[in-house]
Structures are given as structure tokens and as C-alpha cells.
């Protein structure tokens, strides 16, 4: 041991090359997050809210601009399809085509979520600390999608999770359930990261490195015991599936979605899912492609369990936020179907699905935040009866979004399901696709139940009022709905982008 120390001491350590252009979006988001902390510290209370919105918006806009700049220079650098991407920071971060797509998705969804969080006219009863937390979480998600070794991935996982735990508990009005959501999410999240970490440790023991590419090399030929490999893979995947709220690791989802402030739920539902599945796709493709015949059957089972749990539990929910939570569990199952189709179609279709699902979900939560009774948001479904008579526009928009979640044609949800299932079919998973179709039919029941409730029931006497949305919420809902429609009619552009290239190891 000491000899090794001495041996290493002789060498001059070279600083790793850093492609600042490639990682600029992440640096900007995290840098502005630090700036946002300073604003919290030094700016007077009454001026903080507006300033924080400005800082967060500037962060996302600048990050988006630098992302666009990098993409265009990257495309210009290579042949007709552009370079595949850059691996930087001594191989810790890989900015490849899927990572760029996911970053774009995260930033776009981040704008919508920020709009919902920033609107104080309807929901905003949170402290200004929500903004730095939001930026840190967003930065963590971006790193998570691009992390090329497991340790970076773990740190990113915590950077994205810890702020989210706190954001869940920020509601002032329904404080008890908000705090309960936070404590549940935190304890279970920490529990899951412990599993992830143990998996990481076992894989380190197996491969002697935590780089995804090294694990892939080791899996092809090493004398270490496969117990380490598969034990590690199992635990690692459990940690990832937890973040993606895939059943049976979904137990936190309904409680947390219901308890957290609605704008935070929107952010969490859309962006965490994007980040988690970005991570799952990268880990499975880059590190474990050669062992797919061993783990694929197991993930089949997990996907089926998730779809079944989401669809069946969702049927009898009485709270609209809980219902969307179970819908997200079912969608996680569909996404997993695409993620385990180990071909380029599987990758691009899952990326598309993530984008489509994210917009629809954020818009849905935006709508939910508008329906209020005297004691705050009216999330109990019985209060939604006959809403169409009171507010036809809102009910119409929500119906459209529910149809998108159910996967009816002319919505992005349909195209998403279509491309995911056809990718799975091409990979010879016909039985799984049939099961997925059955469960998407079952899930359609509970979306339609809400539609029927809104249109064909008599409104309750003391029903909720629909508050007039502030400009921010209006913009968020409009954008989300518009993108849902646009991707349902003209998905070509996004599909092209999603399928422009694979992972760089």
C-alpha cells in the first residue's frame, strides 16, 4: 500500500481536458444556482421573489442558448450528421446525442415548471428558497443524464434528489401533508440511494472501475464472480427504477405527488422521469448490453408489474393528483418497455416518449392547480363533477391532456406509445407489447372516468371555483397543450432529433 502511494507520488498529475463548450449548460445552471443562494443571503426579503425568478429564468435561457450553440457547432464539426458528441472531464461526463436531447428536454420542461412555480396568483405560497433548490435539482438531472461513470451518477442523483426532498415540504397551506410527503420521499429516497450505492460498490469490485465502458469490457471477459456483476446490476437498477417511479419501487409516488405543492409535483413528475430514464437507458446500453439476455427477462417482469400496478391501482383513486401519480407509474412501465428494446429505435422512441409525457404532465398539473375550493386546491375527484358546465375551456383542455395520457390519436401520447411499441415489436417482444396494450386499455378507463365525471355529472353544490390563472400558469398550460397537440400531428422533427445518434461510451 505504501509502496503504491510512493509510486504514484512520482508522477505529475495532469489536469483533465475539459470541453467547456459542451458542459456549459450544466455549468451555467449550477453557477446560477449558487448565485441564487447568494441572492437569498443578501437581498432584502420583499425584493427576493422577483429577482429569483429572473435569476432562474436567466439560467435556463442562457443554458439553452449555450446548448444550442454547442449543438450547432457540433453538427458543423462532423460529417453530414454531425459529430457523435464529446466525452470530457476525464471520461466522467459524456455529452453525446441522447444527452443533448435530454438536456434540451429538461431545459424546456424546466421552463414550464418554473412558470408554474413562479405564479404566485394561484399556488405560490412557497418560500423563495424554492428557486435555488429548483436550479440545483435541474443541474443534477442534467449531469445525471450525461454521467458516464457510476460515481458521477451517484453524486448527480443526490444533487437532484436532495433539493427535491426539500421542495416537497415547502407548502405553507397544507403543511402537514406537505411535510409528510417530504419525510416519506426523503426516507425512501435515501433508502434507494443506499441500494444504488451498494450496487455501485459490487460493480466496482467486479470490474475494478466504475466507468460504464470499463464495466462493459469486464462483463465480456473477467475471472471475477458473476455474483458481483448481477448482484450489483440488480441493486443499481433498483436505485434507478425508484427514481423513475417504476413499480414495485413506486410506493412513494402517489403519496409524494399528492402531498407536494402542485407546481413542485409537476416539476418532479416530468423532469425526474426524464433524468431517471435517461440514466437507465445509458446504463443499460453502455454498460450492460452484452449481458442483456440475463437481465432482460427480469426487466420484462418489472415493466409488466409497473404497468399492472399503475393501471389497476389508478382505477379507484379518488384524488386527481394520486390518479396522475398512478398514471405515471403505468407510463414508467411503458417507458421501460422502450428502454429494454436494445436497438436504436428503442432509444429514440423512449426519448420521444419522455419529451411528450413531460409536456403533457406539466400541463395537467397546471390545470389541477387552477381548480380550487375555499381550503386550497380541490384535488378530490368528487369535487370535479360537472366541471365542464362551470368552466368548459378548462375541462376541454384537461380532457385533451387526459386523452393524451391515454394515448388517443392526434395527441403526442399516441405517437409516443406507437413508436415505443413498434420498437419493442421489432426487437421481438410481441407478448410484452400485447400486455402493454391491454394495460393501456385498462388505464384509459380511469382517464375516461374523469372525463365522464366532468361532462356528464351534475356539479356539486359547494363545488370548487376555477381561479383565473396568472399569466405564467396560462403560458405554461398553453405551451404544454400546444406541444402535446403538435407532437401528435407533426412528430417528425422531434423524432428525427431523437434518433440522430446513440450513446458515446
Amino acid at each position, binding site marked *: *500500500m505504501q509502496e*503504491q502511494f510512493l509510486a*504514484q507520488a512520482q508522477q505529475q498529475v495532469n489536469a483533465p481536458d475539459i470541453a467547456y463548450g459542451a458542459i456549459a449548460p450544466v455549468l451555467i445552471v449550477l453557477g446560477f444556482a449558487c448565485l441564487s443562494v447568494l441572492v437569498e443571503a443578501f437581498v432584502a426579503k420583499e425584493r427576493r421573489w422577483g429577482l429569483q425568478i429572473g435569476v432562474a429564468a436567466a439560467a435556463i435561457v442562457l443554458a439553452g442558448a449555450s446548448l444550442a450553440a454547442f449543438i450547432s457547432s457540433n453538427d458543423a464539426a462532423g460529417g453530414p450528421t454531425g459529430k457523435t458528441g464529446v466525452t470530457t472531464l476525464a471520461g466522467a461526463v459524456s455529452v453525446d446525442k441522447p444527452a443533448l436531447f435530454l438536456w434540451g428536454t429538461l431545459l424546456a420542461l424546466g421552463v414550464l415548471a418554473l412558470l408554474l412555480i413562479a405564479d404566485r396568483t394561484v399556488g405560490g405560497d412557497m418560500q423563495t428558497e424554492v428557486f435555488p433548490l429548483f436550479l440545483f435539482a435541474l443541474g443534477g438531472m442534467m449531469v445525471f443524464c450525461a454521467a458516464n461513470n457510476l*460515481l458521477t451518477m*451517484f*453524486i448527480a442523483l*443526490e444533487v437532484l434528489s*436532495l433539493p427535491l*426532498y*426539500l421542495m416537497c*415540504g415547502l407548502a405553507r397551506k397544507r*403543511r*402537514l*401533508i406537505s*411535510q*409528510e*410527503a*417530504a*419525510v*416519506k420521499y*426523503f*426516507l425512501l429516497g*435515501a*433508502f434507494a*440511494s*443506499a441500494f444504488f*450505492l*451498494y450496487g*455501485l*460498490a*459490487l460493480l*466496482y*469490485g467486479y470490474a*475494478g*472501475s*466504475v466507468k460504464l465502458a470499463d464495466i462493459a469490457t469486464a462483463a465480456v471477459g473477467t475471472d471475477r464472480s458473476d455474483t458481483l456483476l448481477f448482484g450489483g446490476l440488480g441493486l443499481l437498477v433498483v436505485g434507478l427504477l425508484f427514481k423513475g417511479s417504476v413499480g414495485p419501487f413506486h410506493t412513494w409516488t*402517489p*403519496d409524494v405527488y*399528492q*402531498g407536494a405543492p402542485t407546481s413542485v409535483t409537476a416539476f418532479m413528475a416530468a423532469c425526474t422521469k426524464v433524468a431517471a430514464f435517461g440514466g437507465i437507458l445509458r446504463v443499460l446500453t453502455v454498460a450492460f448490453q452484452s449481458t442483456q439476455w440475463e437481465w432482460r427477462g427480469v426487466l420484462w417482469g418489472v415493466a409488466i408489474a409497473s404497468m399492472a400496478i399503475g393501471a389497476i391501482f389508478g382505477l379507484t383513486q379518488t384524488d386527481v393528483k394520486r390518479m396522475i401519480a398512478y398514471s405515471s407509474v403505468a407510463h414508467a412501465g411503458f417507458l421501460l418497455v422502450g428502454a429494454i428494446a436494445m436497438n436504436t429505435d428503442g432509444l429514440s422512441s423512449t426519448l420521444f416518449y419522455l419529451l411528450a409525457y413531460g409536456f403533457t404532465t406539466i400541463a395537467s398539473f397546471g390545470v389541477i392547480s387552477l381548480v380550487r375550493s375555499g381550503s386550497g386546491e380541490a384535488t378530490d375527484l368528487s369535487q370535479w363533477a360537472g366541471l365542464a358546465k362551470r368552466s368548459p375551456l378548462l375541462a376541454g383542455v384537461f380532457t385533451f391532456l387526459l386523452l393524451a395520457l391515454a394515448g388517443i390519436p392526434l395527441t403526442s401520447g399516441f405517437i409516443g406509445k406507437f413508436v415505443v411499441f413498434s420498437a419493442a415489436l421489432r426487437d421481438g417482444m410481441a407478448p410484452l407489447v400485447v400486455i402493454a396494450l391491454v394495460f393501456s386499455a385498462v388505464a384509459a378507463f380511469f382517464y375516461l372516468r374523469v372525463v365522464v365525471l366532468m361532462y356528464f355529472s351534475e356539479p356539486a353544490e359547494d363545488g370548487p371555483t376555477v381561479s383565473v390563472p396568472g399569466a405564467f400558469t396560462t403560458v405554461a398550460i398553453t405551451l404544454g397543450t400546444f406541444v402535446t397537440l403538435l407532437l401528435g400531428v407533426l412528430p417528425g422533427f422531434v423524432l428525427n432529433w431523437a434518433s440522430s445518434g446513440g450513446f458515446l461510451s
Partner: protein
Amino acid sequence: MTPTYYLLLSALLFSIGTIGVLVRRNAIVVFMCIELMLNAVNLTLVTFARVNGQLDGQVMAFFVMVVAAAEVVVGLAIIMSIFRTRRSASVDDSNLLKY
């Protein structure tokens, strides 16, 4: 040196932590059990670092410790705030969100 014993010990600690999460009611104790799990992982990492003859595992243990510390702070903050409103740190009392 037989790394197996270290690995077994760390697996044992990890299991004790897991079981602690399942059986203890006090949120702080539940949380301490999670910390125990993280530290069990640290032991595994350090053992493997030794087996592999590298320093990577030890460095990773540092990172895990820092992350664990951050987790402690966030966790205690959340548990404290819920304790202030509820006057109870039992995880079984936080039971409004269900079904």
C-alpha cells in the same frame, strides 16, 4: 488477508441497516440506519480498493461520506420541521397520505 470477511461484515452491516429501517419507528433512528447502510457500502468500497490495489475505492468512500453528510443535514431539517408541527418523530404518525 481475506477480503471475504470484510465483505461479509459489510453485507451484515448493510442488512442490519436495512432491517433497522423496517423495524424502527423513530424517524431519526430510521435515518441513522440508512447512514449505517451507506457506511457499510464504504467498507465494501475500501475492501475492493485494497483487493484491486487501487486508491479509487477509497476516494469514492470520501465522496460517499460527503454525500451522507449532506443527506444528514437535509434529513434532519425535514424531520425537525415535521417534529415541530406534529410534536412526534415517529414515522408511523405521518399517515395522512394513503390508499
